[in-house]
């Protein structure tokens, strides 16, 4: 008896066409599946999708308010995802960016607040450095444990998220608490402290220093990965660790580099957020950017330009999601699921890049 069957066949080289097409297909598939989910929640699917993807940019009333938000929300996602993507490419799984983001915010804010109310042009650069240092140091914990003892970095970096959250709770009610805040938890607001405030650089665009650094990070990563030996070593380590060693890569240094840079970028993102859009250190100022950035990194196929686009898209779902919450009463969790779906569809379609599907008739 002859019956039809599907066979996966490994391609001789990954397909460029599918590598660029699958993210787009994944977005379309997510819109369809998401539409069905919204419909199941009793909302008009077309209107929901339009509210999320179209209205934040082009709606007459909301557009002018939402458009700047796009850069504000995309900047931390891109900054973190760029760092993570370098590690993911090298097979270093830092999934505790959320913790590094928090520690960067705490350190950056602490340096700024220590100088309150001095007005000096050097305060903000010092805060950036402190933020990067905080994230870097937090990422060095899994880094050193992995390179010294072989401890799994996935679990350690993740455990440290919970530790960082506890630390955040502690400082916002202690060390960094606003002395004039009448006992409410949370630090002074950076809006009242111009030298330390991450201000909007061009009015009405949402452009702040974090956005600038995100763009710099994209360019830096692009040059590193395509034009520099270190980037080549990062890619080589992920694809063939033994060959990397043969090529003279020091695995310890590479792991520390990848974790360090992703930690520093996440820490910077936290610092830009706390000193600008968030405005102050509070118990729950962190909003999961460190985790969403993992989706952004994969959605962008671990490629700097891809991450830039993916970050903007993910920011759009955040803003659109808020709008949909406001206008249609769509629950916030639906947006989170929507993002999770996007990741699944992307992973499912990833296969097309490396494998060819063949339809055959075979004897059974």
């Amino acid at each position, binding site marked *: 008896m002859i019956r039809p069957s599907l066979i996966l066949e490994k391609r001789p080289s990954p397909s460029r066409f599918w590598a660029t097409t699958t993210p787009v297909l994944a977005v379309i598939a997510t819109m369809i599946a998401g539409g069905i989910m919204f419909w199941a929640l009793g909302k008009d699917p077309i209107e929901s999708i339009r509210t999320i993807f179209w209205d934040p940019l082009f709606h007459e009333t909301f557009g002018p308010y939402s458009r700047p938000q796009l850069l504000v929300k995309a900047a931390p996602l891109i900054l973190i995802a760029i760092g993570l993507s370098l590690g993911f490419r090298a097979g270093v799984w830092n999934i505790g960016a959320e913790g590094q983001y928090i520690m960067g915010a705490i350190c950056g804010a602490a340096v700024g607040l220590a100088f309150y109310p001095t007005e000096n042009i050097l305060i903000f650069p010092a805060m950036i450095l402190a933020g990067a240092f905080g994230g870097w140091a937090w990422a060095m914990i899994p880094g050193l444990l992995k390179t010294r003892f072989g*401890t*799994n970095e996935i679990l350690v970096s993740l455990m440290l998220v919970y530790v960082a959250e506890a*630390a955040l709770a502690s400082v916002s009610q202690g060390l960094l608490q606003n002395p004039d805040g009448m006992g409410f938890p949370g630090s002074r607001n950076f809006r009242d402290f111009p030298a330390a405030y991450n201000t909007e650089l061009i009015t009405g665009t949402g452009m702040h220093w974090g956005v600038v650094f995100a763009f710099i990070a994209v360019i830096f990563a692009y040059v590193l990965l395509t034009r520099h030996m270190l980037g080549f070593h990062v890619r080589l380590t992920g694809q063939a660790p033994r060959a990397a060693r043969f090529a003279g890569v020091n695995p310890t240094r590479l792991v520390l580099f990848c974790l360090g840079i992703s930690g520093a970028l996440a820490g910077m993102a936290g610092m830009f957020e706390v000193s600008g859009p968030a405005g102050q250190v509070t118990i729950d100022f962190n909003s999961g950017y460190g985790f969403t950035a*993992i989706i952004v990194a994969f959605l962008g196929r671990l490629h700097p330009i891809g991450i830039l686009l993916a970050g903007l898209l993910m920011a759009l779902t955040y803003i659109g999601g808020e709008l949909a919450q406001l206008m249609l009463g769509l629950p916030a969790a639906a947006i989170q*699921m929507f993002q999770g779906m996007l990741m*699944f569809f992307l*992973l499912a379609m990833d296969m097309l890049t490396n*494998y060819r599907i063949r339809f055959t008739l075979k004897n059974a």
Partner: protein
Amino acid sequence: MDLSQINPILLIASLMVAATPILLAAIGEAVVEKAGVLNLGVEGMMITGAVVGFAITVNTDAPALGFVGAAIAGAALSMLFGILTQYLLSNQVATGLGLTLFGLGLSSLIGKPYEGMKVTTLAKMEIPLLSDIPVLGPILFKHDPMIYVSLMIIAGTWYVLKHTRAGLILRGVGENHDAAHALGYKVIRVRLMAIAFGGACAGMGGAYISLVRVPQWVDGMTAGAGWIALAIVVFASWRPWRVLLGAYLFGGITVLQLNLQAAGVPVPVEVLAMSPYVITIVVLVIISLKGNHGAPGALGKIFHATH
């Protein structure tokens, strides 16, 4: 501060309650990893189990049904991971992470209407005569049925893995999938069954939190228990009885920490709250110092049968 408030017998009894969610999730994951698959979605499956179990119990008043529903929900979610990683050959780390993020969103969506509700919890089973034994009675024989179920799952897993043909095949698949395939074993089928078992266990573990330990639905209430379960699998070197040991040790630390908080020990609450996670890291380091012995040979590798 009054340390005399801490009653060692109650401590041990409540330790078992604190440990059971992690125990269930960890034994499930141990089986999954023994089959050569790394599913980092435990947290997502647990929280989904927690909310589904809670919702079913609120609506039916039958916690047993809640646990069954949670197991089914966990297994269903794990099949998403299974299809992606086994048929579509996606990266297991990325897919597992995706599953966790997805599960957190899904549970939050389902759980919205149930926030703040009360639920029928599992009744304690007092085993006649035995539960009256001083000291041992309250420690061993005055628990809810799920604690005994979890212990039976540990014993059953140990027996199946160690002494049955099915267990041997599962270990073989996890050790070297190419060899298992060459001998004619259905690698993907074995792995999917293991993944489903892992999902069901994680689901029940989650339900234990929302139905017994807390018992309430709070968004994000698993708070990293799934990740700790993953750490315990490593700690246990993939051996069922050591999973039990690891989970109970961890449960002990958690309960002690809560008791110390209640007793007003002069240590900041945040330090006590972060202690379980810090201790997990310390344990992971100690384990890795000894070398990760017993890790299945094919763990996390993609299986693609050529020809």
